[in-house]
């Protein structure tokens, strides 16, 4: 059971309180009705599924109920960081050399 830092509760809480909500930073188009087939497929079906660093969404569903974003290594399952929904994708990851 993972331990996840909720950026709203400002502490690490057990995974049982959370629900994973898939890949992060896939914005829904403000003109979704006019989107091409290609773009809609990318938006709704295509996923990065990286082996390594993933940007993903979680919801602290049985806690503060907020959605937020996390950066995690999918090989070790270690969290690099978490941040609030709506905040931009971090340009630099803590601990990353580059």
């Amino acid at each position, binding site marked *: *059971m993972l331990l996840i830092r909720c950026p*709203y*509760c*400002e*502490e690490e*809480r*057990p995974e*049982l*309180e959370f629900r994973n909500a898939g890949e992060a930073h896939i914005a829904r188009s403000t003109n979704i009705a006019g989107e091409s087939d290609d773009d809609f497929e990318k938006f709704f079906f295509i996923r990065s599924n990286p082996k390594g660093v993933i940007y993903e969404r979680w919801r602290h569903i*049985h*806690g*503060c*109920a*907020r959605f937020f974003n996390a950066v995690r290594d999918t090989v070790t399952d270690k969290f690099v960081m978490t941040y609030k929904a709506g905040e931009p994708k971090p340009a630099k990851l803590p601990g990353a050399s580059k």
Partner: protein
Amino acid sequence: MAKAAAKTKVVEASVERRPALAGRALSAPGVKVEMLPPAERISLRAPQASLAALSKALGLTLPTKPKTSAAKGGRTALWLGPDEWLVIDEAGNDPLADCAKVSALHSAVGISHRNVAISVTGPAAAVTVNSGCPQDLSLGAFPVGTASRTILGKAEIVLLRSAEDTFRVECWRSFSDYVFTLLSEAASDAAN
């Protein structure tokens, strides 16, 4: 008060209120689990800018620090999220009516009947709750006054530590049988 009462015809409920599991209690060595009486409750949602007005109307300062609560005059406000509070009134006053007077942006929804409360009291109270709650309930991590929505086994609860050896466990009405039964079973194991 008397004047107001004379003016407005108060419609008395002609039917009885039947709270879930009313009166149920279990004692085990080191811990007692019992249903608490009904209380008035609202789910309050509001942005930062509305907090002063709402606090004033409710008669207590809505806490803004995660996992904390504020209590005054039989009324407790539990921080559940950055824009969410559970307000519990055990003194018979109606927080919904208090919020209705506030024009600042907010959502107040009555949930007095949605939730029920179970008290877990005694030296083994924390161990009892930890039978199904994965949070650290030591006094260091979860001091008196701490409030948190969390998990108990397969049910969601709101947990409030009201004293060193007392927890208030709030759950939805239909989960009360499950939550009470789990706490009872755990209570019997807690002192061993």
